[in-house]
């Protein structure tokens, strides 16, 4: 995009990413390293945006967001500045490094800041389409890149970031439940839908990849079906909470179960792999299938 003349500046917070590292060599003037200084990174990006540049702020999750929440609120959302804040890693992120590196509260934080769109790309097609959308978008974007997402789930014309909803498994009139998720958990949920179908449970799988989303569209997809939300995020404040709020606003009585990371005993003091923590917090495919069955 820079090669095509787009006025983009990469604001790097000293975090390696292959897609940007090559730019550091080929277009050094477009690569502004601010060091491990996330507050300044966001503030500098606001100044760049005020002059018409398109900044992409990126660093090691969760810090581009959590260390600069006030800058995002005051200097970015407060001035309605188009830019992208890119966090590489969602949920447990790199849990071997401990709770400091979890990015499990970001939806809750950003949903509280008006005018910032949250996007969780779920495949490579969506990531590519997001690049074009970001430059057309008049609002700041907070992007949650899940490194565990692989493969291709969408055709380009199926992606609409303003709608934010992808139905990736649709049994039509036979559906008797809906799973709503995002990020790499989609693949788990699609596999669960296959297994469930063999057991007579026909599940719609909805990818809620952009917030805010088209509420009327989602309500239409859900009908009166029971809903299971699954997310690698704090169970409080994420997409499950967004669904509760939606149902409350529209006086819908759908049964809903929310699955997410429940830090009821605080942040873990131990380290481990993502797989270890997904098991500890009961977010494995087996756990999800069990909840799905109990929901019915």
């Amino acid at each position, binding site marked *: 995009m820079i090669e095509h003349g787009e006025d983009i*500046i990469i604001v790097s917070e000293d975090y390696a990413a292959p897609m940007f590292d090559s730019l550091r060599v080929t277009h050094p*003037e477009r690569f*502004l390293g*601010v*060091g491990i*200084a996330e*507050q*300044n990174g*966001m*503030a*500098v*990006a*606001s*100044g*760049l*945006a*005020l*002059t*018409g*540049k398109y*900044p992409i702020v990126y660093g090691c999750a969760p810090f581009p967001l959590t260390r600069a929440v*006030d*800058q995002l*609120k*005051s*200097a970015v959302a*407060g*001035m309605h500045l188009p830019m992208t804040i890119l966090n590489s890693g969602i949920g447990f992120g790199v849990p071997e490094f401990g709770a400091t590196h979890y990015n499990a509260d970001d939806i809750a934080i950003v949903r509280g800041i008006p005018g910032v769109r949250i996007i969780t790309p779920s495949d490579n097609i969506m990531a590519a389409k997001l690049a074009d959308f970001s430059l057309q978008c008049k609002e700041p974007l907070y992007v949650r890149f899940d490194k565990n997402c692989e493969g291709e789930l969408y055709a380009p014309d199926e992606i609409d970031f303003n709608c934010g909803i992808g139905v990736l498994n649709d049994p039509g009139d036979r559906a008797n439940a809906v799973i709503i998720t995002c990020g790499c958990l989609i693949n788990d949920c699609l596999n669960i839908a296959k297994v469930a179908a063999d057991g007579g449970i026909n599940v719609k799988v909805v990818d809620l990849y952009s917030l805010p989303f088209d509420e009327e569209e989602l309500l239409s997809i859900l009908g009166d079906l029971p809903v299971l939300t699954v997310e690698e995020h704090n169970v409080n404040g994420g997409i499950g909470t967004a669904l509760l709020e939606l149902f409350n606003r529209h006086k819908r009585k759908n049964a809903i179960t929310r699955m997410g990371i429940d830090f009821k005993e605080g942040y873990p003091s131990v380290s481990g792999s993502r797989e270890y923590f997904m098991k500890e917090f009961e977010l494995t495919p087996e756990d999800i299938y069990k909840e799905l069955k109990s929901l019915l």
Partner: protein
Amino acid sequence: MTTQQLEEKICLAKRKVLDMCVAAGKGHLTTAYSCAEIVAVLFYEVMRIDPKVPRWEERDRFVMSKNHGSVMTYPILADLGYIEEKELGTFMRDGTRLGGHSKLCIPGVDFAGGSLGIGLGAAVGMAYAAKLDQKDWLTFCLVGDAESYEGAIWEAAMLAGHHKLNNLVGILDRNRLGVTGFTEDILKIEPIDKKWEAFGWEVREINGHDISQVREALTDVRGRESDKPLMIIAQTTKGNGIDFMSDAPLFHGEPPRGADVERAYAQLGVKES
């Protein structure tokens, strides 16, 4: 503009700030008065601006990082024609554009402030963009001394020094006061000149209420020989011009009330409008 003409404009602007704060019953009057001369010299004499085209791309940018002092800019923006004079009467009232912190909806305002420590970073972004595009417009940023407790100020200072942004002019309003007391009692800031120098800035020190010194410090900012960003440390007095409000911590964000109103007008040398 002659010195006398500028002094008269500053005096009038300060009186209008007093009018606005007294009428609203709130506002950071003392903070405004510590930077009155600085803001006036910038807007009337130094900055390349066109009030008829507030968003002119070639204009100099002004970032009021210590944004609670932005009430000082409102009468000057009105005098220059960015906003109408009568709008000053809406200061801090319901639905006004002229809040306690300036916002982008006000013509002539380049940065929406309010949260301290952010403005200098934004100014660095602007100055970097100008360098990248080989533009000759300058970015001016007014920083508070107590605002300098914010770590983000120094993150921005380091970046500006590293990139040799000599198109960036910072002005430190060194009024020596925070909210509750003097900076050197709250948390020592000095030696502030050495700190800015250590971060790669050229440093000048002036009396911020002496118009000739403010002018002198800013006279060569366009085409300066140094490759460093410039920080002008302006020694000022919070509440300057009204003796019972000068150097008085309790008047942070507080206008005079009761009999103090008349005393304030009397000391400004003008009558209440």
